[in-house]
């Protein structure tokens, strides 16, 4: 059988890859892609902990579902901001969106 550690190591790796994407990519959409990976890693952790540590309580699955909702909201707002910024400033590079940086 698969031990819990495999899932946890997998989730940690996925989270780290997502973090790299968020920190290193220039494009704003690519940063959002990285955030999606990180959220998924968290979800894998939640479900794995539910399955291995508390299979009688449904909390892990319920939390995972809430994260789906949060991820959807985040994507909706983030991509809208991206479209709006692109329309005004004709750029997608996060470093060049510096109107608030003085």
């Amino acid at each position: 059988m698969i031990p819990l550690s495999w899932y946890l190591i997998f989730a940690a790796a996925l989270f780290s890859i997502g973090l790299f994407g968020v920190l290193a990519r220039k494009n704003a959409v690519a940063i959002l892609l990285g955030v999606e990976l990180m959220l998924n890693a968290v979800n894998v952790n939640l479900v794995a902990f539910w399955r291995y540590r508390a299979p009688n309580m449904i909390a892990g699955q319920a939390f995972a579902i809430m994260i789906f909702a949060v991820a959807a909201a985040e994507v909706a707002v983030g991509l809208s901001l991206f479209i709006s910024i692109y329309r005004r400033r004709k750029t997608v590079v996060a470093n060049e969106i510096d109107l608030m940086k003085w």
Partner: protein
Amino acid sequence: MPGDWLYIGLFLLIVAIFPGVPILIAAFLAPRKPHPLKNQTYECGIETHGDTWVQFKAQYYIFALVFLVFDVELVFLFPWAVAFNQLSLFGVAAGVIFVLILFVELMIAWRKGLLEWV
């Protein structure tokens, strides 16, 4: 239950392979005579002008956005519908209020004119 998921996994594998095989077979049967004119993009016979990936209306995006929100919320309702026999009146009401919020949301979007195709 794991048996069912095994079947689904096998089925998805087969489903990906089956349409691919005839395409590959046809690649061997078919003639291959490429020609620069033949491989041009077909746009009503005239030569293609400008780049394909031009900017499109954000309207398409807005409909996809409304869909995303609806889709996520509707998925929440499936376990509610399955557990219907075990629910108290409060539980059923909670689900109905959930749908009502969706309905109000749709009405807001409608009244603000967000659902118009312009």
